[in-house]
């Protein structure tokens, strides 16, 4: 673990990038997947990313509204994703300083419990409402999501980094 690697100073994030990333995540969520249990929650991932990297721009309120849209689009009880995403945003913001200190695979280890937390909030709401247990496969989504984290960080930081490299030439 060597946190004293040289780091580039990133350009400030543009709100356009943030809006676009959330739009793409919602799009991926609404794709007609054959089995939803194996699909990582892209919206939660993007939300965690921006809460960790831009805690001043993205916070609980935005997470809540996006959760509501996810609820309505999926036709589930209104408020379950909203609740999950609010908790997710809260913990990501609280841990953002700590998470940013690590390399991306160690970051993924921090993201995994957050994603599991969000998933279990949704599961809990469903169980209270009388649904059956969905089985262990429910954990595959968060695991895949955490595995996607290094790639996602690289991808979402690209707009801030590329401009810098172009300038340094």
């Amino acid at each position, binding site marked *: 673990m060597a946190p004293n690697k040289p780091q580039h100073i990133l350009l400030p994030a543009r709100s356009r990038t943030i809006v676009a990333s959330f*739009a793409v995540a*919602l*799009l*991926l*969520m*609404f*794709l*007609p*997947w054959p*089995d*939803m*249990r194996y699909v990582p929650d892209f919206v939660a991932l993007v939300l965690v990313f921006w809460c960790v990297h831009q805690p*001043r721009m993205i*916070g*609980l*309120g935005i*997470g*809540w509204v996006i*959760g*509501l*849209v*996810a*609820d*309505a*689009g*999926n*036709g*589930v*009880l*209104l*408020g*379950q994703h*909203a*609740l999950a995403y*609010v*908790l997710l945003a*809260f913990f990501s*913001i*609280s841990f953002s300083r700590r998470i940013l200190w690590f390399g991306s695979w160690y970051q993924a280890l921090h993201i995994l419990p957050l994603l599991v937390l969000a998933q279990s909030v949704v599961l809990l*709401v*469903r169980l209270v*409402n*009388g*649904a*059956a247990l*969905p089985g262990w496969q*429910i954990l595959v989504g968060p695991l895949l999501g955490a595995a996607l984290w290094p790639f996602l960080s690289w991808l979402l930081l690209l707009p801030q980094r590329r401009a810098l490299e172009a300038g340094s030439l």
Partner: protein
Amino acid sequence: MEHTPPPFFKRGPAPVVRLAFFASLSIALLILDARFRYVDGLRDVLALAAYPFQKAATAPITAARRVAEFFVTQERLRSENTALRAELLDAARDAQRYRTASAELEQLRRVTEMRARFDRQTIPAEVLYTGRDPYDYKVILDKGRQQGVLAGSLVVDEDGAIGQVTRAHDLVSEVTLITDKAQAIPVQVVRNGLRAVGFGAGASGMLELRFLPANADVRNGDELVTSGIDGSYPPGVAVAKVVRVERDATQAFARVVCRPLAGVDRSRYVLVLSGAESRPPYPVTESPRRGTKAAARAGGRSGAE
């Protein structure tokens, strides 16, 4: 986040306060939605916000399918054509028979001064996508209130019933499949007219007839159709076939498992049978008691809508 910022760095209320606020708001919404269904207006607005994403997400797949359909072989087209023509002839014969039969029935009803049956409006629709939630069995159709889809309508494919419209938004509607655990459908055995209620069995993709006495006259292979006595479904729509009957001497009820006839989780093109029959109001009873959650919800769905 531990130290308190100086007053000139204030950024609104503390995160914990915000968390408590939004969390309680979410829980309030959940309770309102689950128990009282007060928030359907808000849901409509949000569904409208989600609609472009849903459309965009399904667009490439629809386009790919169109392209694939364009490149079918001549031979397949011809064989399909022949099969369809044969089917059409069959259907035409059935339609003839149906027309005469319904005319006769009409006459008989008039004679006995019974109320003429209301012919339902049928709306063809396409399944946009299946609900994301792995816990319940729902599909979203591309027709909504603007096309005349009403909550409570039965949805069928070419083989039989697949579900009920549980929410109708402006442009899309949400169908709960008959295999959903909370979905009940009143059925009748074709062979002897025995009435029963079919409940979804969840992940197995089957239906279960509940509350049938252990000695009820149900056999393997019996066909079930909708009975239509609850008023929200038309009678006589094929639903399922009995595949297993278990009679246990220690239990009061028989366990009857049925397989849906329709392609509940496969069909892409479906028909919505909209519009309810006008019938006299239910007799007043004492205040309804809450049974098991599932039964209460299912009853509310099929009874009230």
